[in-house]
């Protein structure tokens, strides 16, 4: 097992651990924070997959994913403040 594979497993564990907060709550903001952190972790996972499978196209996917996740979180924040 190379060190890259160990890192992939660690990142997968981190995603599952933050999933706990999504199910547990207790408030809506807790869940949204957990999803925000999960998207950040997933972006890192995609970049690492680009290295692991030697496909540079995954980097573009990660970039677009980061932009969309940011917009989604901002929309959620506006909604919670009552501005949407």
């Amino acid at each position, binding site marked *: 097992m190379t060190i890259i594979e160990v*890192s992939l497993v660690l990142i997968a*564990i981190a995603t599952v651990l933050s999933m706990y907060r999504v199910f547990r709550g207790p408030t809506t903001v807790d869940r949204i924070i957990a999803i925000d952190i999960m998207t950040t972790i997933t972006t890192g996972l995609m970049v690492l997959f680009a*290295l692991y499978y030697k496909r540079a196209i995954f980097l573009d996917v990660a970039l677009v994913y980061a932009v969309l996740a940011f917009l989604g979180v*901002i929309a*959620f924040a506006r909604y*919670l*403040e009552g501005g949407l």
Partner: protein
Amino acid sequence: MTINEAIGAFLIFTGSLFYVLSSLGLIRMPDVYNRMQTATKSATLASLGVMIGVGIYSPCCFPKALVIALFLLLTNPISAHALIRAAYRSGIPLWEGSIVDKYKEALKEEGEQ
């Protein structure tokens, strides 16, 4: 294993450890605000580490990985700030062990004017 692969692998491994740390912070901290603090900081540094590490490991990807890292560095604090303000405005109280809350006074003053 060449020298840049070694440095890249080290950065990637450190980054993934910080990802685990951020999700542990998400689980262990007592209220929304403290969770946000610990999770956002370590997730941002972890992404920086993983992406720079990938860039160093295979130099062909370096510019694009750097762009993603800079983008996350810019937007993560902004989304944290937006969410935390929304949390405060939607009435989630601070943890009972908190010792000072100046923002409440400021909002009250604003309401009176």
